[in-house]
């Protein structure tokens, strides 16, 4: 290797199998982000706002995915999928990733929700908004920065996840990290380095955006801190 060159990036894009993996990974991350964020936000609202008997239990249950070693989660997911007879494909990966990401989203959104209190929603209803109107017009706009941040983090987590994807993916198209791992087994290649750099750029941009967006909205607490703490621990 001499000097700087974009040759290896070109090589990567010329390799149709690798390119398909990249697109598969982006697809998985996007679907996970959308579905996981919606479900996680709904769960957070339910947990914080309902006075139901089961909500303390659900609160603890929700933290389980954050502390269970990923390899355990991966094997469990694989076992369940084979038990119910699902054919492994990128959709089983998506399913596993969504399950996992719901907890992350819930932690982030719940933190913001708790700090908002219930009075603004009541104020909206007092001013003529229905229950749903107060959620749509006041609660969601208030939560928006936290929701966007949570979504982007979910995207980054899903995009570069290896363990969970490894256990739940099929043979046809493999997510990029799994694909890279198989390639490395036959010896390192500069193309892999190029992909590594690319993946890092994508993940860092997502996390960077997640940290930046709440700031742009002028909010101090978005719950992102909680998440980074949870990840580090």
């Amino acid at each position, binding site marked *: 290797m001499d000097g700087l060159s974009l040759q290896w990036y070109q090589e990567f894009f010329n390799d149709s199998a690798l390119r398909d993996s990249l697109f598969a990974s982006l697809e998985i991350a996007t679907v996970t982000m959308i579905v996981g964020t919606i479900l996680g936000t709904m769960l957070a609202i339910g947990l914080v706002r309902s006075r139901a008997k089961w909500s303390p239990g659900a609160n603890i249950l929700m933290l389980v995915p954050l502390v269970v070693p990923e390899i355990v989660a991966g094997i469990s997911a694989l076992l369940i999928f084979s038990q119910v007879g699902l054919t492994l494909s990128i959709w089983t990966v998506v399913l596993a990733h969504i399950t996992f990401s719901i907890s992350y989203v819930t932690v982030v959104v719940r933190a913001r929700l708790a700090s908002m209190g219930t009075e603004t929603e009541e104020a909206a*209803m007092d001013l003529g908004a229905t229950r749903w109107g107060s959620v749509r017009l006041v609660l969601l706009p208030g939560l928006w920065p936290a929701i966007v941040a949570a979504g982007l983090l979910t995207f980054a987590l899903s995009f570069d996840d290896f363990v969970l994807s490894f256990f739940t993916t099929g043979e046809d198209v493999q997510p990029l990290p799994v694909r890279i791992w198989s390639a490395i087994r036959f010896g390192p290649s500069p193309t892999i380095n190029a992909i590594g750099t690319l993946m890092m750029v994508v993940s860092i941009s997502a996390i960077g955006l997640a940290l930046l967006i709440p700031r742009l909205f002028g909010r101090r607490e978005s719950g992102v801190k909680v998440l980074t703490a949870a990840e580090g621990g």
Partner: protein
Amino acid sequence: MSEAIRLEDVSKSFGEYEAVKDVSLTIEKGEFFSLLGPSGCGKTTTLRMLAGFEIPTEGRILLEGEPVEDVPPYERNVNMVFQSYALFEHLDVADNVAFGLKRKKVAKDEIRKRVEESLELVSLADRAKSHTNELSGGEKQRVALARALVNEPAVLLLDEPLGALDLKLRRQMQVELKQIQREVGITFVYVTHDQEEALAMSDRIAVMSDGEVVQCGVPEEVYEHPAEAFVAGFIGVSNLMEGIVQGKDKVKLASGQSVKAPLPEGCDKGEKVQLSVRPEKITLDDFERGMVTLEGTVAERVYQGVNTQVTISLGDGASVVALEQQTYRASADDRWEPGAKVKLGWHPDHCLVLR
């Protein structure tokens, strides 16, 4: 005047706990009505029932004659000013104020006009485009007020709206609130635990204790003629002295002295009562005809600028507090040294016998 709100035997329980007990009140149109009481006595719960956030366990609530117990908040013609202001942070000041009108699908031009008017009313016309987190506490308070008033509700509910402000701003806002209320003529139901605030602003006050309304009346009445020892103690400072009825208009104090006091109807000899006398009604070493006089020892003297607060021990553990004006005749600094003997007195009319 006709009635704006009527509560009939309203109770509210949270599980086992009864937060509001059997409250009956009538509030007239255009009245500035205060709910006053110590923390936890059920003021907020009562207000939230009026707003529709809590449904009474028992009793009826009538708004301008219509029963509304089961009407949701968004269909009631009342608006609330929350203690935390509860402004919508993602909207600017004008959009906050316009929120209620937009829900009612008022025409755009009319919304703009009314928002302008109500911001004018609270002297915030130049902040219409400001973001809510750029505002000071007092300004947020005004936005919350404008946001509620712009809807021209039948009744405005205010839950300790000045609680978060410092004392000076609070005094200023009290005056402004009262002015605004006169100007718009809307019925205000005002929750506070600050008795001075209630006395200064209200047309009528309902004093609450432990979920019950213990007295309801105009400020002078509540202050001068408290119905119970609780009211006498809660509103202003009161000297409460234990005593036993001795005969017609005669009470023997626990500290031994016999004093003249106007007994309420049906007081029997030997009955235990409490005498209540306001500190400012007690004079020291300076009497008029017909006054009750006692002797005591000065226990403490606190100079307070406008007046001096003197605590006098009557013996046997009983003591009273007197507030003496600083007059041109006498300054406080060389009188009523602690330990000195002193004569004190009050007019029997200013003494209230509580059973």
